[in-house]
Each structure stands twice: as C-alpha cells, then as structure tokens.
C-alpha cells in the first residue's frame, strides 16, 4: 500500500520532470522559468532512461546562448552542480566536455567541484585535456587552481578612479586629471594621493568656509559668521607664511570675497532654496582643484523641514529621559544647544530648507567651532582584461584629513577626541537602524518601541564599549583565540609567538629544500573581512584600545586564502560572475557571503598580508590561520597544509603561529586602512 503510494508520487514527479526535460530540449526559456516558478518540483533527480538530470541537459544543449540561459535559470532554482549520474558524471563534467566556459563559470560559482572524479576516475581537469578544450583548461587553472604560477606576468591593471572627501555634511568628489595619472606604479599612487591631500588641503579648505557659513546662517548667528571670516583672514596670512605660490594665494583671495558675501547666500535663501541654486553657489568657485561634484548628505528640499522637526522632537525625548546615564550627559549639552538653535531659527523664518544641514546633529564644530574632520576615500578601478572582470576598490585612508578652520594648531589626536566626546550618532538612529546595529553586535533585541527605545540606545552604547565576545551561534574558535579574546595579557608578551614565527620563516628561507610549486616569491595570504562588522575599524582603532579592535577584527574574518601576485583579486571572480547574472544564492558558503555583502551595497574587505613569500610558506600561513580560527567560524571548505618545519609541530604551536600571524595581520590592517572591493555596478 505504502509502496504504491510512493510510487505514484514519484510517478508524477517524473512526469513533470520529463516535461521540463522536453522544454529544455526545445530551449523554450520563458516556459521553463514559468514551469519552475509554478510547480515546486525536485529538479536534482536523475531521470530514468535518460540517465542524466535536467541540469546535465541544460549545460550541454545547442545553441550556446540558450544553454547558458537555461543553466542560469536552473541554478537559480536550486540546481545542484555536483549531482552525479550513474556514471558519476556531474554537470561540471558535461560543461567541460562540451567546452562551455560560461556555463562552467556559473556552475563553479554555485559550488560546483571541478576536482570531483567520475566512476572512470576522471576529473574536470582530465576531461578538459582529453577533449582538448583548452579554453576550459585555462579557466580552471587560472581561477580554480590558483597553485599554477606559470602566468605570473601581471594579469590586471589598477587605475585611480576618484577621490572622495567626506565630512559630516558634505561629500566632495574629485576625479584625477589625465596628467596626474601618468604611469605611476601602484605603490606610488598611494603616495600620490597623500601628496595630493597635502597640496590640496588648502583648496579643499576653501570650500568649507562656505559650508560652515551656511550652517551658521541657518542658526542666524551673525557673530559667528563674522568671527569665521576673521579666522579666514588669519588663515590667509598664515598661508603667506608658508610660501604658497602667488597663484593659490590669489584664488584664496577671490575665495575670500565669495565668503564674505554672506548676503548673497542669504538672498538665494530668501528667494527659494532649490537645490539647483545651491549648487550654483558652489560652481562659482572655479578654483583649480575644486571637486567635480558636491553632494549634501542630508539635503532634501521636500522633506527636510519635516525631518528636522522630527529630529528635534527625538532629541528632546532623549534629553528628558537620559538623566542618569553618564554617557549622555555630555550629549545633553549638545542636544540642548541644538534644540535651542532649532527653535530660535524656527521662530525667525517660517520654512527654510537650509536647516537640514544643521540637523546632521554631531557636527565637529561643537568644541569651539575650530576644526573639520574629513575622511578621505580613494577609489581604484581594478581591471582584468583577460577574464573580463572589473572591480572597484575603495580604500579608506586611516588618518582623517584635518581641515583647520581657525588658526589653532591642534594636533589630530585632539581633534579625534573632540569628535568622540560629542553626541553619539546612535541617538539619531530610527528603530530599524537601532535594531540592525544591535544585531550586528550580536545582540537580539525585543520589540523596540517608545518604552524600550532608550534602553536599547544605552545597551548599544554599552555593547560598543564591551562587545559580546562569543557570539551565540554555537560555533566556537580554538582555545587560543578564545583566550586571547577574553583578556589582552598575551599582547604584552609576544616573545614566544615571535620565536615560533622566526623558526618557521628561517626554514622557508632555506633555498636548498624543494618546495611545492617552487621558490618564486610571488604568493601572499589574504583574509576576507565583513565590512558590516569592521565598520571602518582602522579609523576607529586610534580611539579605542587594541584589544577591542582585536575582537572586532577576529569576528569579521570570514575567509582565509592564499593568492598569487599576478591576479590578487581572482578569489572574487566567481562571486562576480554570479553577481553579474543576478544570482542571490550560492551553495558555496564563501561566494554566498560575498554576495550578501554586495547586496548590502558595500564592498568586501580584502586584506592581503605576508606579501612576496614562496607558495609553500603562504600555504602554511593560511593553514595556521585557518586552524586557529577554526573551520566552523570560516567559510573555508577545508583546512590547509603545513610545509617545512611546521609540518612536524604539534597543533598547539601551529595555532600559536596562526594567532600571531593574525595579530600581525590586524596591525597591517590598522595601518593600511580598509579596502573594500565591489563590482563596478554598485555605488
């Protein structure tokens, strides 16, 4: 009875599958998609008589573009690229045999395993050779088997794309002019940026007075505006001291005229405050080196008034509730200040969209109105012509650019403190953001309502100070990491770790040994970090203690790998192939994680460490780091291999080595700054 029943179920499934099979064979894409969306059938089944699954079929049909689209549809509906038929053949094998490189890319991206062997003992590589599909062979070797170092000539290009200067209120975008780009090598480009910052901080500076004036205009505080103009004159004289060229001095003067023309800004104000006119104000500065684009972060002419009002209310709320929380004491002062300002300006003018610029809450001019902090982002365009891959690399420079508005010679550290001590940005969070932030820190809040909001705000502040070390996902790190997360004692005595590393390094430097893949020093180890966890850690690191940075750093790592110099970002190619085809899921955990990060409009943080080592050394470092982090915490599929003297070490020493390597990696990360990689179509 039961048997009959099952058989019937299987019967219908097969019937539907055979229909799907026919649809695929006819290449009727729309029907296939409709069919799969409507009937939820299990497609990872080998069809009787045919001896293959539907994905096997889709990979191999003619014409090629139909085949590609079919494959894509099936994979999106959960097709398994590793489904083997009775001969052990998987769709990956079929794609290789038929030389379908595009299909192969999709299959591997979705977790297809090219090293899997069929019942004849042949892997995808073997088939590529056997069928003389050299395109496929090249692809497999370049992207999948990164151990092949034959093509060590540079396979990519890296171009400076643009520079973004961001402050609380404004984003200024600079694009390099062609002559600035002239064939600089990669490392020199970063110097170029630094130079550029130094050179142009004067020019950039000049933009800010207007903006600040703006803010003050809103507050209707003539005195401040005046004092600001005075400051500028001061600055002007200082510039002369610095022997700036007469050219820039002149621009400064013209600038001066513009700035002192406060009335002018007011006029635009009274007429109407359309964004267009506002921009035109900036366009007046036809300065050399002025940005191509300025955007006001919270500028929105229609809703800003409403927003500002809401904000005031919220600020009031915080003000009234947070009496006893010491964290908010200082904040209160600001809040009170701000709200007073809001109210006074409200009474003056009925509606003025300008206010939105004041509503950004924490502006750094709180402590005496002296300094503006601007963070500098540099965007590079990474291009691999051979593989047709374009990625955008965003580097967040560690040290923020200090834009002095008056003549105090404050050192950067002070500035940082003055910002940190003002109103925490979290006060402005709406309930959803607050929830997201708490979740990010590993806390699961209940409903956030008026009655619980303040509690959760406090909780967030507390969590930021002492994050939850072990997240409750049931996964654990190795003992060594757990210990290191609990206390920071080990950081004060690193000697045993250093000894271990030296031992390993000396062994790898021995040229008389034969190493796997030779002794060309072209390899490195890389870590992939989740930017949603790091949240630009290098910038914060100077303000918090090292141990806290360590905890965040460890929590953010999701993949450890080994790469080679010729294609530093090849580990992102698979994910990018899928991204371009609109995939949102993949069976490969690493690719899935990258896709998740990209769909939140941020780039994966890619940290290359221990550059220029021989492959065996890179493999060893990779293995040590994977071991110390624990496979369950990572998206890596397998643990690595140890070579040389480390191969004979006990597990404890290997983990210690891994721990120290991670520690070094963090220091590199903190000094280098965050680099986020994303496909070119995300902004």
């Amino acid at each position, binding site marked *: 009875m039961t048997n009959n029943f099952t058989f019937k179920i299987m019967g219908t499934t097969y019937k539907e599958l055979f229909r799907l099979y026919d649809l695929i064979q006819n290449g009727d894409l729309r029907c296939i998609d409709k069919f799969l969306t409507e009937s939820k059938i299990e497609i990872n089944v080998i069809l009787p008589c045919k001896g293959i699954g539907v994905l096997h079929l889709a990979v191999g049909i003619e014409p090629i573009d139909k085949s590609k689209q079919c494959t894509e549809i099936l994979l999106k509906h959960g097709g398994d690229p590793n489904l083997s038929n009775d001969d052990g053949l998987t769709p990956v094998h079929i794609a290789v045999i038929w030389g379908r490189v595009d299909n192969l890319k999709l299959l591997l991206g979705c977790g297809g395993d090219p090293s899997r062997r069929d019942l004849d003992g042949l892997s995808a590589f073997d088939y590529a050779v056997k069928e003389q599909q050299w395109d496929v062979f090249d692809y497999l070797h370049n992207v999948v088997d990164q151990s092949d170092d034959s093509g060590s000539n540079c396979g990519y290009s890296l171009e400076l794309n643009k520079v973004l200067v961001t402050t609380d209120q404004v984003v200024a975008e600079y694009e390099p002019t062609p002559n600035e780009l002239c064939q600089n090598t990669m490392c020199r480009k970063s110097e170029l940026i630094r130079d550029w910052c130094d050179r142009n901080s004067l020019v950039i500076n000049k933009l800010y007075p207007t903006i600040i004036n703006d803010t003050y205009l809103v507050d209707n505080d003539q005195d401040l505006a005046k004092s600001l103009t005075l400051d500028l004159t001061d600055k002007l004289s200082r510039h002369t001291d610095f022997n700036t060229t007469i050219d820039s001095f002149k621009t400064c003067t013209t600038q001066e005229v513009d700035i002192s023309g406060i009335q002018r800004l007011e006029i635009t104000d009274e007429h109407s405050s359309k964004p267009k006119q506002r921009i035109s104000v900036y366009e007046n500065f036809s300065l050399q080196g002025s940005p191509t684009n300025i955007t006001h972060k919270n500028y929105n002419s229609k809703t800003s008034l409403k927003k500002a009002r809401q904000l005031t209310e919220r600020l009031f709320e915080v003000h009234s509730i947070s009496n*006893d929380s010491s964290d908010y004491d200082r904040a209160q002062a600001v809040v009170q200040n701000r709200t007073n300002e809001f109210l006074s300006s409200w009474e003056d003018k009925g509606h003025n969209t300008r206010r939105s610029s004041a509503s950004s809450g924490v502006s750094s001019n709180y402590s005496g109105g002296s300094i503006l902090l601007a963070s500098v982002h540099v965007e590079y365009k990474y291009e691999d012509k051979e593989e047709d891959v374009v990625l955008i690399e965003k580097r967040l420079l560690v040290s923020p650019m200090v834009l002095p508005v008056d003549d105090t010679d404050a050192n950067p550290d002070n500035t940082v403190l003055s910002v940190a001590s003002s109103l925490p940005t979290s006060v402005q969070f709406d309930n959803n953001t607050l929830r997201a932030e708490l979740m990010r820190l590993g806390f*699961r*809040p209940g409903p956030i309502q008026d*009655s619980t909001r*303040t*509690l959760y705000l*406090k909780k967030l502040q507390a969590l930021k100070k002492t994050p939850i070390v072990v997240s409750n996902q049931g996964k654990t790190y190795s003992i060594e990491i757990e210990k290191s997360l609990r206390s920071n004692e080990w950081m004060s005595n690193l000697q045993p770790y250093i000894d271990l590393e030296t031992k390993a390094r000396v062994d790898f430097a021995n040229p008389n040994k034969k190493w796997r893949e030779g002794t060309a020093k072209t390899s490195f180890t890389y870590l992939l970090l989740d930017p949603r966890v790091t949240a630009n850690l290098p910038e914060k690191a100077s303000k918090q203690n090292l141990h806290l940075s360590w905890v965040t750093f460890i929590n953010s790592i999701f993949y450890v790998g080994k790469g080679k110099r010729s294609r530093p970002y090849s580990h992102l190619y698979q994910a990018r192939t899928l991204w371009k085809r609109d995939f949102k899921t993949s069976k490969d955990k690493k690719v899935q994680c990258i896709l998740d990060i990209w769909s939140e409009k941020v780039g994966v943080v890619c940290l290359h460490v221990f550059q220029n080592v021989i492959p065996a050394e890179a493999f060893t470092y990779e293995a040590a780091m994977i071991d110390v982090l624990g496979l369950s915490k990572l998206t890596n599929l397998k643990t690595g291999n140890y070579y040389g003297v480390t191969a004979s070490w006990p597990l404890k020493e290997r983990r210690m080595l891994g721990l120290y390597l991670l520690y070094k990696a963090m220091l590199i990360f903190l000094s280098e700054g965050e680099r986020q990689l994303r496909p070119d179509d995300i902004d």
Partner: protein
Amino acid sequence: MSSTSQKHRNFVAEPMGEKPVTELAGIGPVLGKRLETAGFDKAYIVLGQYLVLKKDRELFQEWMKDVCSASSKQSGDCYQCLKDWCDEFL
C-alpha cells in the same frame, strides 16, 4: 541560593490576576507609587514590559532603574519574582 521572601512566595504561588504592582517582590509603596505614575498600575503591565524585553535581566533592571529609580536589589527581586512566576504559569 538565598531563600526568597514571603512576598515573593505569595506572588509566585498563584496566577496574578488583577494584583496591583505593589504585590510584586521588591516593590514597596514608594516604587509602587512611581510605577503607577508611569502608567504601570497593575502587576501584569510590569509583566508585559518584562516579556517585551525578552526576559533579559540586564535590560529589565535597567528599565526599573529608569522608570522608578529602583535599586539593583529591588529590581533584582522584582525580576526574580516575575521570572519564577513565568516559569510556573506561562
């Protein structure tokens, strides 16, 4: 494990029904008054808050501190009282 107060045992012994807040362990006339002013006149409303905060001890005590300036002893007693009641009746 310290023994619990008589008030605690009384509260945990039966469904709370319409009991006023002052029946909760740790909440005397003063705190009871403050809670009432804040709108928490019945024990079940406090229970509601306790549940909304997902039975989280830290958050609940923080809330008690905010809303009626309870000491950590008082809020701890109240928390324990609600927790035991929930274990029994929820």
